[in-house]
């Protein structure tokens, strides 16, 4: 490997020897093509014409009345595919194409990354396999159907808890046996180097756009930038635009599930301990022996016991803070944005909205908060109905 892939002590590439040539190949290709004008030009035109960038920055006035300060939404929910995942899938898919790979695999939790990968597989004519936990297949069946319509094969993974962690395990195993012709299109800012670096880079367009839009529309930088954190790709995407602006408070919101003290949550940075999972040294939800915990969260996309290593570093350095909100708060926030703005947010993104609502009376009224509305909630209507039946 050319680079160490470290964020302070975190990150690295803790994978079985057999995978090293595969990640070395991806690192080398990425370092080469990120500077290649043809690659950059093709990606930029895909982001604009295919995916619909730039996404708007919207002042949610009626929602802001509830928080008591100004809330602006970075509308990644309007991106083609319905979530920020398309930014990374297009970037890595194009990288795979430039590398001459014909097959894509990916893991998915909520199905948004799987959907984005399936779209890109269709676009580039690549055979695509999506690994998805069996519990997630059941609770995100709309996305499963969409992936199949797009021509991808969806492989349910029943090992472990049947969620994102197990899907990653199985995708890694498949990749190990098929490294020669298969590109692993990793969905979050975690996993072994070079994935955290690559995913951050392809998602950093969110932060770049948001910063410029703030200056243009509001005339100043925001006071707070908030984003939900599972693996952490949408958060690192928007944070990256503001990391050097020390006046901007960066807040990552994790899933407290049924409560941080109940053990039924996925708040890795709040409750985890340092360890090694899926190739990276980072915070991990684990027991005293180092066995990985089962997680629980109303939103499948956050239901993961690890977190991207750069977030671990930002937490320790104090540059970003990480808080957690419970499922009930998340459902309240989902309903509120839906009713007040006519925008149905993904349950993942609703975590960030829930934290903003919790800050009513705590943040001054002149506060400007930007929240990464990372995805839309169409996929979640069944789950919301289950928790809050309309009768």
């Amino acid at each position, binding site marked *: 490997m050319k680079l160490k892939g470290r964020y302070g002590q975190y990150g690295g590439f803790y994978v079985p*020897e057999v995978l090293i040539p595969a990640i070395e190949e991806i690192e080398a290709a990425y370092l080469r093509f990120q500077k290649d004008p043809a690659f950059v030009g093709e990606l930029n035109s895909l982001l604009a014409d295919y995916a619909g960038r730039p996404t708007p920055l919207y002042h949610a006035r009626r929602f802001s009345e509830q928080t008591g300060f100004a809330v602006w939404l970075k509308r990644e929910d309007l991106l083609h595919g319905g979530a920020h995942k398309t930014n990374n899938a297009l970037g890595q898919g194009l990288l795979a194409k430039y590398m001459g790979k014909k097959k894509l695999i990916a893991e998915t939790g909520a199905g948004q990354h799987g959907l984005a990968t399936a779209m890109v597989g269709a676009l580039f004519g690549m055979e695509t396999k999506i690994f998805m936990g069996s519990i997630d297949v059941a609770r995100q069946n709309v996305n499963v159907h969409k992936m199949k319509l797009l021509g991808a094969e969806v492989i349910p993974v029943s090992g472990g808890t049947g969620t994102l962690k197990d899907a990653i395990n199985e995708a890694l195993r498949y990749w190990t046996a098929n490294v020669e012709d298969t590109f692993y299109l990793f969905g979050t800012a975690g996993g072994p180097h070079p994935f955290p670096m690559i995913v951050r880079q392809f998602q950093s367009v969110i932060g770049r756009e948001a910063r410029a839009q703030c200056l243009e529309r509001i005339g100043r930088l925001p006071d707070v930038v908030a984003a939900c954190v599972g693996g952490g790709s949408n958060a690192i995407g928007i944070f990256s635009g503001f990391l050097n602006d020390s006046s901007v408070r960066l807040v990552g919101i994790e899933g407290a599930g049924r409560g941080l003290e109940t053990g039924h949550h996925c708040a890795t940075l709040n409750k985890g301990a340092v360890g090694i999972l899926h190739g990276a040294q980072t915070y991990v939800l684990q027991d005293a022996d180092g066995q990985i915990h089962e997680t629980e969260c109303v939103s499948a996309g956050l239901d993961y016991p690890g977190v991207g290593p750069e977030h671990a570093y930002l937490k320790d350095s104090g540059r970003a803070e990480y808080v957690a909100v419970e499922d009930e708060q998340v459902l309240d926030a989902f309903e509120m944005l839906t009713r007040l703005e006519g925008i149905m947010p993904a349950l993942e993104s609703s975590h960030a909205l829930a934290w903003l609502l919790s800050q009513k009376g705590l943040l001054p009224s002149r506060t400007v908060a930007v929240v990464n509305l990372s995805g839309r909630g169409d996929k979640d209507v069944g789950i919301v109905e289950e928790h809050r039946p309309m009768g």
Partner: protein
Amino acid sequence: MGRYQDVFESLHRAALIPFFVIGDPDRQTSLEIVKTALDAGADILELGIPFSDPVADGPTIQKADIRALKTGMTPRKALEFVAEVTAYKPVPIGLLVYYNLVYRYGIEAFFRDFKQAGGTSILIADLSIDDAEEVAPLARAVGLETVFMATPNCPEARLKKIIQYTTGFIYTVSLLGTTGQRDSLSQLVKPLIQRLKTLTDLPVCVGFGISSPAHARQVAQDGADGVIIGSRIVKIIGENAGDKDTMCRLIAEFITQTLKALQEDSRIS
């Protein structure tokens, strides 16, 4: 503790190295199974500590990990288990473990306790040669051998680095993939053994996908100094749940047959 050198120097055939997950299906049965394997003539043991997320393992060993975890196996108990095995018979024991378990225990403490239990070598499944410095000096400081994996897709410069950090034996992976039974032997293994043999005098042991006495004999004929058999044996435990006697009988039979196949190979050469 048993030394690899003594085994490899005294044998006039390839060493037979069965792999077991410690505590599969439960601590007591697991101990009896391991003793059975030793009584049947296993030369060296490769033992794994069960982990919740074993990414280098195929379905057979994943299931064994789950069985062992469900019946309460922990890293601390696993090291006690190693001590019981070495007290029964002082064979060399190689440990195969995922990094998070070692990290959480404390790397130095883990190595010290494993050494004290009579263990011989340590192999961390998800730690490549690039990070060998994190563990190898600590392992050597307490007198443990450090085993690393060599794979068919390793370029020569990398093989040299692996050899540089490896003591005991080189764990040679026969194929691209996870552990698990295969119908036929990988075509990639013979060229890899030959490449390694031109680069080092270290014993070369081959694992992953060795699924029959015939496979074992073939690998030995290809030049391997040892044959590591995991999933094929672990499968017997899974298929005979609740019937310890059958489990032990089938494992003893398989080991006896494989030893016979390896002896036949030595007569040919």
